[in-house]
């Protein structure tokens, strides 16, 4: 659960800014909305044996008895909710988050209120990019149980996604009394890596022994290292870390997405299709597949495009923007509509401030020829000393915009090293 920010995507429920309506109007205009004239297509299959759907584990009606039990038994509710959240993570199926929510509901308030249930609920909210409510729930949990390690870690994670690094760091430090030292170290160093101390933080984390680390923790460590290596411009090292992490946690879709991005960046689209084969039910991964198909002029692109379009349209219609970052990239890299992509990227930026959010905003602004619109992201980069060669590559071409110079300096200093040496 420690790397839960990876599920992070923005949510804009209830945000009725003019920009949102503008984007909505545009999306309608370009026909992204799934038309509701389904009546004409409805049919009666001719064969009773035709299979209409496969029901995954955890989504069967017969399991409702376990849920009923969970209403009165917290020792049933917590593992069940945990199982649903895990299912949501590995399958990308958002319905499981709803199932978890239903199971936790009786334990979130009143005399039965449970800190564990609150933390799980915060994880559900965070996975849906309801960051502000998630923080409120976490604080409630911390009131019930001060220094709860899981709560502190989740809190740090959410604050980091929001770009509130000082507060995140405070939570990490509080963690030191309750959690294993390597967890605290990962928590703090990954934040230092975002605030001006990238090379040192990278060195510290790569020295952390992975001996005895649980698989999930190892995957977290490797994905942090991979990301840091990418920001340092050491793609070869990054690839090593991603592969390493995937050996520890083969189902980790965040690692897969990050690795796929590296491959796409290196014009290795065919390897993306191999890496993500059969993973197209997870929206962020389907996006990478679509970009790869576009690069390869693969005929499968039309299907992927249609599915992503429908998925974003459904979110739009529900008033949710869970996959805003992916939506911006889709519009930019698949649909080649930089102006709409920029609007979506700006909405995304209002909600979350991860490294990839900076990148997608800058790329969209650049493609739309409106880099000034990304000024607040550039300010954020400067204020935090965020180092990233990919950001530097964009800002160095801009006149009148000063960005942090270290990143470029670093790439020249640190020629790609063989990872075996640094281990």
């Amino acid at each position: 659960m420690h790397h839960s920010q990876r599920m992070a995507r923005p949510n804009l429920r209830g945000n009725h800014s003019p920009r949102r309506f503008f984007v909505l109007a545009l999306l309608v205009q370009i026909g992204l909305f799934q038309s509701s004239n389904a009546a004409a297509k409805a049919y009666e299959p001719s064969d009773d044996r035709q299979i209409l759907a496969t029901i995954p584990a955890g989504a069967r009606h017969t399991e409702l008895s376990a849920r009923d039990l969970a209403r009165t038994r917290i020792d049933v509710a917590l593992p069940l909710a945990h199982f649903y959240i895990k299912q949501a993570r590995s399958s990308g199926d958002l319905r499981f988050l709803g199932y978890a929510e239903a199971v936790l509901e009786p334990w979130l308030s009143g005399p039965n209120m449970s800190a564990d249930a609150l933390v799980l609920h915060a994880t559900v909210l965070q996975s849906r990019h309801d960051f502000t409510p998630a923080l409120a729930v976490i604080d409630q949990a911390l009131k019930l149980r001060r220094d709860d390690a899981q709560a502190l870690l989740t809190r740090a994670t959410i604050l980091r996604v929001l770009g509130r690094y000082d507060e995140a760091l405070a939570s990490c430090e509080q963690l030191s009394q309750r959690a294993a030292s390597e967890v605290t170290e990962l928590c703090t160093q990954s934040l230092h890596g975002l605030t001006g101390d990238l090379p040192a933080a990278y060195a510290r984390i790569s020295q952390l022994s992975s001996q005895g680390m649980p698989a999930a923790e190892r995957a977290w460590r490797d994905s942090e290292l991979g990301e840091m290596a990418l920001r340092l411009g050491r793609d070869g090292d990054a690839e090593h870390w991603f592969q390493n992490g995937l050996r520890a946690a083969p189902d980790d879709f965040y690692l897969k997405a990050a690795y796929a991005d590296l491959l796409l960046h290196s014009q290795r689209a065919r390897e993306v299709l191999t890496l993500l084969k059969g993973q197209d039910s997870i929206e962020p991964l389907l996006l990478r597949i679509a970009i790869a198909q576009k690069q390869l002029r693969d005929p499968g692109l039309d299907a992927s495009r249609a599915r992503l379009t429908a998925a974003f349209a459904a979110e739009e219609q529900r008033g949710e923007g869970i996959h805003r970052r992916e939506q911006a990239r889709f519009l930019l890299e698949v649909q080649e509509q930089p102006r709409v992509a920029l609007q979506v990227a700006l909405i995304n930026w209002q909600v979350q401030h991860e490294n990839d959010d900076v990148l997608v905003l800058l790329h969209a602004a650049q493609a739309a020829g409106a880099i000034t619109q990304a000024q607040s992201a550039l300010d954020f980069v400067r204020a935090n000393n965020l180092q990233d060669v990919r950001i530097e590559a964009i800002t160095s071409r801009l006149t009148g915009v000063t960005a942090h110079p270290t990143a470029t300096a670093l790439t020249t200093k640190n020629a790609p090293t063989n990872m075996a040496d640094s281990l």
Partner: protein
Amino acid sequence: MTLKQIGLALLTMLMFNSAQAHIASNGFLTLNVEGKTISGTLELAIRDGEMAVGLDGNNDGQVSWGELRAHQAVLGTYLQSHLLIDTAQPCAITTDSVKVNERVDGNYLWLPFTAVCNEQPDTFHIDYRLLADVDPSHRGLLTLTAWGATQTAVLGGKQSTQTFAFGQPTQWRTFVEYLSTGIWHIWSGIDHLLFLLSLLLPAVLLRTGKRWQPVPLARPAFLNILKVVTAFTLAHSITLSLAAFDVIRLPSRLTESVIAASIIVAALNNLFPKVTEGRWRIAFLFGLLHGFGFASVLADMGLPSGARLLSLVAFNLGVEVGQLAVVLAVMPLAYVLRATRFYRAGVMPWGSSAIAVLAMVWLVQRAAG
């Protein structure tokens, strides 16, 4: 569509079946307000249907078409208890046979239904509670059409009841609504048109002895047509008004049967002419009965209380516009062709025979109910 595009579409369909991009759980609810009745469809992902009522009868982790069909009644009951539509009082929901619809994120069950309300709603509440107990993130995406205007809304969640108001429809909108219903009624229920055409086919001809001759001039042909159409219009307007204001009421099975019979009479009269000069009299006599047929459509729709007369006039006008359009399309052609063998020995006898046979089938069906 080129072959390549078809291939692509097929490929796309195959891929959709193999895997789906996960979209949060959405039900698609379509409601069309048509007077007192609301016709609607609910589309629910098969997976959500399983969660709601348990479709997987043999518990093998897969839902087949047979299993879905077997749960049709259960789905109906579920809908009735989890979707509440009410004006002042709840509207009664009845469901029809379930179908399947493929969406990009997988197969959906497609359940048509009708909700009958006590009064024609201008404000109503929808309480959408489907799946609320198992998946609080489930939402119903509503497309609501009333009086030619469409609105959308997201249903479900914490605030499950929502109120929809249409404001009183403006007079103009009511007029247009009923006018178009009138036009569509005459075009979609071809029985009225066939009756009229049977009477009009010989209008461009003249019966002399035992033979049909073309009318020499346009004027008598035009007068023939005018008389028949006017008589039919007058007659059905009278009975339509009487029925609409509840002065006279006839059982619809009777009127529908007699309408079928009227077509047979009109068609047979072309084959074995009895009435050759005053066909407008047939038009008037049976037109009275057709008026009751139109009235049953109006009864289904309901007349808005504030604008009963207006909507009646609009509907009637729609019927006239619809039939006049057909007359204007067909009769000039008939006039041009009237001297040909094709028209006199082909269209007249064979067309009339075909109409008569069709009407006989209708008569049997309608009389049997």
